[in-house]
Each structure stands twice: as C-alpha cells, then as structure tokens.
C-alpha cells in the first residue's frame, strides 16, 4: 500500500470508529449507560448489512437493515437490563457481546462461521475510479451527519434529561422524568448508530469474520470516549482519531523495527496506558463536555 493509500485508509477507519465512539458517547458519556458490549451492535450492523447486500439488496437498503437490526437488538437488551440496577446493564452487555460473537462463529448456515463473509458488494464500485477516495468521502458524510445529529440532540431537551439521569437518576424521576423510557430510547438509537458504523466497516473491507469483533473493540471505543471527553461530541471524534492513529502507529512500528513484543499486545498496553494517564491527569478528556450557559 502506498503512503497516500495508507493515509486514506487510516482516515476511513477514523470516520467509522468515530461514528462508533459517538454512539457509545450518547449512552455512556451523556447518560451513563455502561455498555461493555458495544462491539455486538457493531457486529450486528456489519453482518446484517453484508448478508443483505449479498442477497442482492442495494447498499442503502442493506445499511438501513443493519442499522434497524442493531437498533432492535439494542431494544431487546435494554428492555430487561435497563429495569435492573445500573451495574446489571454492564454485565448484560458483556454477556450479549460474547453471545453475538459465538453466534457469528457457530451459526454457519447464516454467518459462514469462522471463515467469515467474503465478497461483500461495495456501493458504486464500478462507477468510481478512485474508489478509496470515494469511500473516504462517503464515510465522512456519514460521520458529519451523525455528529451533527447528535450535537443537536445532546443539547436539546432529550439530551438534557439524559445528563440528568447520568448525574442522579432518582432525582430525575422525582422531577417527573420517566427515566426508563429515556434510557431505552438512547440505547436503541445508539445501537442503531453502531449498526451504521458496522455496515460501513463491512462494505469497506468486503470481508468480515468473527475475530474482527472481539471484546478488544469495545475496549478501544471506551478508550476513545474517555480520551476524547465523556459527553462531548467533538471529543468522541477527537478520541477516535487519537486511538486509531495510535493503533496504526504500533502496526507501522512492526514493519520498521524489530520489536520484542507482539504488536497487538503492544497496542493493548499503549491503549491501557493512555487510558490510565487520561483518567489520572485529564479526566475531562481532550475536549471537555460543553457547559450549558446563558447570557446576562
């Protein structure tokens, strides 16, 4: 891969992961819904969209299908788990992430198992010359759309109630907020957005397999929002850029140096280190959540 192609490839991944980080940020940053199975919704979007387009459906319909299915999965997890105490959501989502990965591995009739899906069609493949640049523009368009949507929503009355729930759920209830409904809607919406990210991921690579959807993905995305600044929309994007570049950097390192450590291990070590450093020295992240203020 040429250096330019590598740079464009990196940017595409930043766009896709930024959408994923934005979706986790809505749940965990704005509302404190501790989703530790984020990768499951990414995977559902990826597999659903890939399978739908392999049956001949056009890209927009496949992508929509991936988003809807991920959103429905979000509702299915949210309805029981969100009624329980906060920590149960964390446990339920971890379990859900593993269940989805096992389904991808074992339900071969649907997912082809460990070998994964190949030949996933790409939108406008034959119509465009510089396909990579086209895909960069496509993912950028989605990222801008999702970010703008979430920026407005976060600072609208809906987002304000999510912040109130994050700060003190019982008080929000005592002020008349049906917090379960707000949490369920936020979780479903975030899951659908993760599904969009998954679809963009699948159609870019044209090949997906279960080992791309390990719990480590969830860990990366969490690192993105902590580093970026929990609750901050631009922060989630900045965090995604930083984490993707760090991951890319460790891979480059492998090509140019003789390291004693396996690069994927080194990547986890560096991510963990970055997470700890931010939590200790800059807990508000790169871009602190905006404070709602009014003039004189």
């Amino acid at each position, binding site marked *: 891969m040429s250096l330019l192609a590598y740079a464009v490839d990196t940017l595409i991944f930043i766009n896709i992961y930024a959408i994923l980080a934005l979706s986790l940020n809505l749940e965990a940053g704005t509302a404190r819904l501790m989703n530790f199975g984020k990768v499951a919704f990414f995977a559902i979007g990826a597999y659903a969209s890939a399978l739908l387009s392999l049956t001949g459906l056009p890209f927009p319909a496949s992508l929509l299908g991936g988003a809807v299915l991920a959103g429905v999965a979000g509702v299915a997890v949210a309805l029981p788990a969100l009624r329980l105490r906060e920590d149960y959501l964390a446990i339920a989502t971890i379990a859900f992430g593993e269940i989805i990965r096992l389904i991808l591995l074992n339900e071969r009739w649907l997912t082809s198992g460990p070998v994964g899906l190949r030949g996933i069609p790409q939108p406008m493949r034959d119509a465009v010359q510089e396909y990579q640049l086209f895909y960069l523009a496509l993912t950028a368009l989605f990222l801008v759309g999702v970010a703008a949507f979430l920026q407005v*929503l976060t600072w609208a009355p809906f987002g304000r*109630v999510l912040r109130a729930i994050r*700060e003190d759920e019982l*008080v929000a209830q005592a*002020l008349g907020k049906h917090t379960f409904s707000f949490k369920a809607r936020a979780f479903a919406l975030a899951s659908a957005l993760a599904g969009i990210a998954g679809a963009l991921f699948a159609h870019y690579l044209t090949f997906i397999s279960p080992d791309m959807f390990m719990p480590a993905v969830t860990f990366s995305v969490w690192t993105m929002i902590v580093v970026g600044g929990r609750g901050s929309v631009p922060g989630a994007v900045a965090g995604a850029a930083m984490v993707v570049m760090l991951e890319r950097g460790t891979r480059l390192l492998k090509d140019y140096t003789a390291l004693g450590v396996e690069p994927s291990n080194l990547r986890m070590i560096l991510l963990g280190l970055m997470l700890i450093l931010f939590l200790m020295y800059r807990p508000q992240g790169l871009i602190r959540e905006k*404070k*709602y203020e009014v003039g004189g």
Partner: protein
Amino acid sequence: MLAGRGLGKSFGGVEALRDVNIEVRRGRITALIGPNGSGKSTLINVISGVYPPDRGRVEFEGRDITSMPPHAVAELGIIRTFQVPRVFRGMSVIENMLAAAKGEGADGVLSPFFARSRVKGYELSCLRRAREILDFLEIGHMRNEYAGSLSGGQQKLLALARALMAEPRVLLLDEPVAGVAPALARKIFEKILELRNTIGFLIVEHNMDVLMDFADHVYVLHRGEVVAEGTPKEVLGSKQVLEVYFGE
C-alpha cells in the same frame, strides 16, 4: 388533597413508620417535626413513591397512588426535595432548572428536528421562568456555575428552585432552608405563604419561630408514630412534644 392513611414501613427490624395518618391540604402549610430518626424523611419517601409502604395507602385527590413509581407520582404534580440536596453536580445551575421543566412534548428524540420552532419556544419560556425563580431565591448570579460548585446552602436553594420549576401541585420539602441565611429563609417562607393557595405544602422544619409564624398545621412524629397534631400553638406547647424532645 394528599393523604397518607395507616402508613407503615419497616427497614429490617426498624419500624420507621407505624400507622401514620397525615393530610396535606391546599390553603394551609403543613409542617412535620420530630427528633432525629423519627421517620420524617421516610414518610416523604413513601408518599413520593421512592419506597413502597408495607401497610396503608397514599391518596391524591381521591385516587389511590400507593406504590406508584416516583416519576408517575411526580407527573401528578407531587414534587419532593431531598434532605441532603441532590443537585445535578456536573450540570450548570441553569441547566439543572431546565432539566426540571415538564417535557411538554419537546423532549423527544426527533423534536429538535421536526418541531424546531416549538422546541425553541419551549426553551425560551422555560429559561424565562427559570431565571425568575433563581433570581427570587438569590442564586441568579450563579446560573452559569456548575451546580456541584455551589455551597451547601445554595444547593438547598437550587433543589427548591428546581422543585418549583417542575410546576408542582404539592411540594414535599425535607428541611428546605437548612443552611440558608435566616433572612432569606424567612423570605422563602413568605413566598410559600403566598403560594399556599395554589400549591399544597408538607414541610419538614425544625425552626420553632418559623413554625410559629408560618405553619398552619403541625404533625409531630416520634419513633414512626404521629404523637401530636394541631396548630403550632397547640402542638408546640403540648406535653407530648416536650416529652419527645426533652426526654421521657
């Protein structure tokens, strides 16, 4: 309008409420007193749906609301504050206020996109009301500070302001002016006096002077039971109350 009938609540072995009968009416200020651990906060928690009672009923305007979830109780207009002020610490004071306003259909996921002008109008009217309330409670100048950075007394005021913002029909206030400067505390009670014809009040308050001047009806709780009730004059001089407070 709001009544507790035969309310009982135990925590493990502790009987926090036993056969408590209480009534809150519009037009009068109802006060709740009693020594530490006598069950005052528990009563508010039971009425507001935070804890379901073991026995008895809560009625609001003839309707049984026992064990309704807190948000449903609040939606009826029964708004409570907490003894330890619980502000949304990581949000600005003004945003605490806006978060307390009724949603009025503006708080949907799609409302800011498909009902933009309605949301705008809603926000403006909420802001206006929020600033009025904050100014009245003398914390208007703190509107852009994080609520978590307010002093304890200011947090109490914000909690009260937020409760007013929720358009209450009944306010259950657990020591609303603890830690607030006496002059402002009196000003708040004067406002409460003004509002009592539109809002029902149940107030946990210890200050005897304040009770004498502002309360219309006082309940005395002791070890989970109502041991006396009546006008402040009747109650505060009574033998039971002296016993409760100064030893049996």
